[in-house]
């Protein structure tokens, strides 16, 4: 069904277009001078000013590996995060912990743990699926690099971002 839009009947001076031009310029110039005279400020100057302090607790930034209060790397290379990762950003190469290591009874740890941050979609499924509370999404969001290789976070970098996390369930303690 066709709808006929009633167009407003314009007065002759309105038809001249010039009044519209002038009132329009009044609006634009109003904004122009407000900004020019610093009466108004909207834009945040990003690299100097940041949102970091306002990020909510549930913010999902870069995934990272953590060590616990005993200094143990919590990841045991079960590869569940590699399995669940929707964009397949995670690659893990497991290895056996040598017998002389303090945590030899844990038996398994990642030899290489890589997250391709070009692929990562920050969904947080890796954190959710982890049975060892070893991977967490931190608040780091400005993940940059000048090459593809640089954008692949290796194990060292992941522990750097992750740091130490306390208050986790300790299932590998002496009682076990």
């Amino acid at each position, binding site marked *: 069904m066709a709808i006929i839009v009633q167009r407003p009947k314009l007065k002759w001076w309105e038809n001249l277009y010039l009044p519209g031009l002038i009132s329009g310029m009044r609006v634009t110039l109003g904004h122009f001078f407000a900004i020019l005279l610093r009466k108004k400020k909207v834009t945040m100057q990003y690299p100097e000013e940041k949102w970091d302090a306002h990020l909510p607790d549930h913010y999902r930034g870069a995934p990272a590996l953590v060590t616990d209060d005993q200094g143990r790397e919590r990841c*045991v*290379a*079960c*590869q*569940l995060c*590699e*399995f669940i990762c929707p964009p397949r950003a995670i690659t893990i190469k*497991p*290895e*056996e912990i040598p017998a002389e290591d303090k945590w030899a*009874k*844990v*038996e*398994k740890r990642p030899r290489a743990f890589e997250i391709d941050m070009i692929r990562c979609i920050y969904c947080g499924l890796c954190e959710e699926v982890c*049975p*060892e509370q070893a991977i967490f999404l931190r608040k780091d969001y400005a993940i940059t690099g000048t090459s593809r290789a640089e954008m692949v976070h290796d194990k060292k970098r992941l522990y750097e971002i992750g740091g130490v996390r306390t208050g986790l369930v300790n*299932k590998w303690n002496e*009682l*076990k």
Partner: protein
Amino acid sequence: MSEVKPDLVDVQIDGVWHQFPKGTRLIEACRQAGAEVPHYCYHPKLTSPGNCRMCLVETGMPPRPAPGAEPPQPDESGHLPISWIPRPVIACANTVAPNMGIRTTGAITEGCREGVMEFLLANHPLDCPICDQAGECTLQEYSVEHGKGESRFREKKVKKPKNVEVGPRVRLDDERCIMCSRCIRFTDEIADDPVLGFTDRGSHTVLTVYPGRELANNYSLNTVDICPVGALTSNDFRFQMRVWFMRETNTIDVNCATGCNITVYSRQNKIYRVVPRQNNDVNSDWMPDSHRLNFHWIDGESRLAEPMVKENGGHRVASWAEALAKTADKLASLSGAEIAVIASARMTNEELFLVNRLVKQIGAGHVEVVPRLGEADGYLISADRNPNTNGVKLVLGIESPGSGLEGVKSGIEEGRIKAVLCLQENLVEDGGFSPELLGKLDFLLATYPLANPTTGLADVVLPGACWAEKSGTMINVAGRLQRLNKAVEGPGQTREPWEIVRDLIQALGGGNGIYSVTELFNQLASEVPEFKGLSWGQIGDLGISLIDTGETIPAIEREKQRKAAGLIVG
């Protein structure tokens, strides 16, 4: 109700009446009726000790009338009513009886399973994240299906030895062991090397290896396969890859003429493990460790990945077209009598079929294969270490493979043979050709997956795919036609041997028109009489018996005897 045949008995399973032969174990009857009964210790190829108690089911028999009472009357279907026994029985060791009733569900059965699971899990460590069995662990599966969901066990778990080397290839974690004794029975009954056993009692029972001995026999890794949990793990596969990542390809073992049925587990074009696949006519459920572990060279350092031609004493990478053209040019300048073709009994029937064509096309004076003979081990390893010697006899038409090899050698020595086409063989190391002898040749073509002394001498080197990278059929020692399936892609420019031979035929001016192995098999079936009427799909995963060679596989014979004696289900 139809008349009951003498050797069949009527059994009611979960309310439905079935017929089974006398002597069928309850667990097998239930499986055939589609009601899977959970079990740990039961294995059809081993005796049933009935020690895990997981397969408890509720059974019933017709009521026995009290003296003087009316005997029970059959209902309209002709069956007697069942009076259920209030105590469950194990399904793995009991056999069916006439008019028996079995319930695989219900309060008694389910309560038993929950209880057994709770006992098993009381001391079981929660280390699934590091356990290699995770993903194919029956304890995991049953705790989801039949477990309580939470543990009431508040005490400390019993500590047991972990990470024990029980043999050169097998590692034991006693905390994970659920005392099913499958491994003990395997080493005792199948491998004849009883080195495993239980010590201590109660919840402190541990699996140990006999003092001063180790689990070192050539079938030790089968214990890892049958272990329902992660107590026994393979040193070779340990921590390499989680099972859920890997792709399974059903194929056959090519290390000897037995042709054990296997499943190749691979991920991202890399093979991680090989496990036996059940085929009661070939390898039962087992395979030798030496054959199982012989796959690491596939992605090794010395793989050939590019065609190469020899120039000024060294090899340089060439294109397929160039290498084939060079070969064709050389062969065209020689007469057929001056050319010898050395094929391989490791080639598939399809490849040998094309080799036969190539031989006819160039009129080659000599066709031979390199024999490989070893000692049979009395179980699954055949004396003939070539997987397809029977195929060579049938398809290539060589009566006694290997007998003409000396003739080729003397031909080269005397200068009668100027060119050798060595297809998928290693003449220097396996064929007994000395490098000096091969140096007398005008032209040597070698195809092989790996760099070896023969390819080092060859004028043209072509990278041929190995067994895991090609498809085809082979005939085992007992005359069984079995299928080899491609599990991974070959590296670089590798081609399957049948493609190489086809391209050679084409480069020499012959026609082709073959683009797949199945097409090739159809041609083979139409030309070789023994294959008449066969199709690729007909062979299936388990193969079909093609010819009678009069040879048998010792392990299968023993299994048949044990089955006939009623020791095992089989």
